[in-house]
């Protein structure tokens, strides 16, 4: 059930180069599903005007967490919200997906956030995770504790996620793969993994107006005409969508 509410922030801490916000929401775990996201904004402010779509990082019985990377004024202001202050929250939004018990997750940078959330449902599997530097590699231990085999790479030492995927390409054979990361990474991966995986899904991001399927802003070209990231996604079969 999608609702719009004003909810209190109960924690704001640094996690590598990112900000982790924890928001109090009793009972959220009953209706937030794998793959979903929320739209959040500072309460009582009309500027920034739009709420920001952010995937769940985690969902507990009485709260949920979001991971924020500062990209502009909106995310900068969100990253500065203190415990005790309130946010506008619209959600959960988007389609839920079947995470599968195992599988391969491929994350680039902040793309770790929805995949970390997805791993709540998984029992094992593999995470291939690339970032700019060591500081950007977050939540590795937590993923290992959940039973995933984690292989990492950084651009300052070693190369990109694509290099890491090529080194481990045999692991992908016949698997379900989920990707979240920058557009350039998704485009390169598409070519690399095409002939290996059983199914590949990609988490997409778009500027959204409403987040709920009303404004038709977050259009993405697919083999079946335009679809909408907020309503039909944010997770799509990779072969279905045009990237970039």
């Amino acid at each position: 059930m999608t609702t719009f509410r004003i909810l209190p922030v109960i924690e704001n801490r640094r996690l590598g180069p990112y900000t982790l916000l924890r928001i109090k929401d009793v009972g959220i775990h009953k209706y937030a599903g794998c793959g979903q996201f929320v739209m959040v904004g500072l309460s009582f402010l009309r500027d920034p005007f739009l709420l920001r779509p952010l995937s769940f990082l985690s969902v507990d019985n009485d709260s949920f967490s979001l991971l924020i990377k500062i990209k502009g004024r909106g995310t900068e202001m969100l990253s500065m919200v203190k415990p005790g202050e309130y946010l506008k929250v619209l959600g959960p939004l988007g389609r839920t997906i079947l995470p599968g018990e195992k599988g391969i997750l491929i994350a680039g940078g902040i793309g770790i956030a929805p995949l970390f959330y997805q791993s709540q449902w998984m029992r094992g599997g593999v995470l291939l995770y690339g970032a700019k530097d060591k500081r950007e590699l977050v939540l590795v231990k937590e993923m290992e504790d959940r039973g995933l085999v984690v292989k990492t790479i950084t651009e300052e030492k070693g190369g990109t996620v694509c290099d890491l995927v090529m080194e481990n390409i045999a692991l992908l054979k016949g698997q379900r793969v989920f990707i979240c990361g920058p557009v350039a990474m998704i485009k390169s991966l598409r070519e690399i993994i095409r002939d290996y995986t059983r199914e590949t899904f990609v988490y997409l991001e778009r500027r959204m107006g409403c987040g709920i399927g009303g404004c038709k802003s977050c259009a993405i070209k697919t083999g079946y005409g335009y679809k909408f990231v907020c309503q039909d996604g944010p997770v799509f079969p990779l072969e279905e969508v045009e990237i970039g």
Partner: protein
Amino acid sequence: MADLSVSFTGIELKNPVMLASGVWDLPYTELIDFEKLGGIVYKSISLSSREGNPPPRLTEIPCGVINSIGLANKGIENFNKEILPQLKDLGTEVFVSIFGESIEEFAELTSRITDVSGIEVNISCPNVKEGGLLFGADPDIAYNVTKAVCSNTDLPVIVKLTPEAVDIVKVALSVKEAGASAITASNTFQGLVIDIETHKPIFRRITGGVSGPAIRPLSLYKAYQITRAVDIPVIGSGGITDWMDALEYFFVGVSAIEVGSAIFNNPLAPIEIIDNINRYMDENEYKNILEMKGEVNEERC
């Protein structure tokens, strides 16, 4: 308790707050109690389906948004079969926005619309057949479109004007002359945003429509000019995000208001506006909307 109902030229609303065309669709019924709304204007429908503009379609500006959606819709047949029956169940007055690429298309489209409380004519779109000028930019063309719509329906016809008209008052007078029941003032302003990485406009169609609080004083002034010049009812639209914004419009003499992109910032804005107008009227002992509207003191200057 104040009486919020309004009634004008064949249109009867339980309160003067309508949901504007374009920003919402059926998923909003999960979030907003539609029964509380005075009316809803369903997003612009054309004769046949249109997939809309290539992305990106929307970006943020200070205190607002700019969009280039491209009037994506599934056409009149789909509207009548799939959408209208669902809208009719929502317990509010249903209006539908229409647009065409030629005057003939407006006429044919109109003839296929029945069973709604009124038609809102979107003349802020290009007259493709006659060189691409906006229908609403020119008083004569606006007259012809309105005439074509009015002669094909018995339903109330509301014409939504574009602030891009050279002289919006002349266009307002023309559409009234052609038979419009009411005027919505007004649609988005055209604007431009450049991507400083590519040095190019962010939209493929170059410009987009600007909406949100950023345009409120501009739109309010258009509504002010029109209510003074034209004696048919005006529905105020442009940048209304709360009850105080709404009051500004009532004080320049509009009969109802439309809330649009405000729902991006706060989906409950239309409901909060209704509740707060009610409270304001009680506190200030206004018995009805008619008593409250058009209070701007002209002697100030």
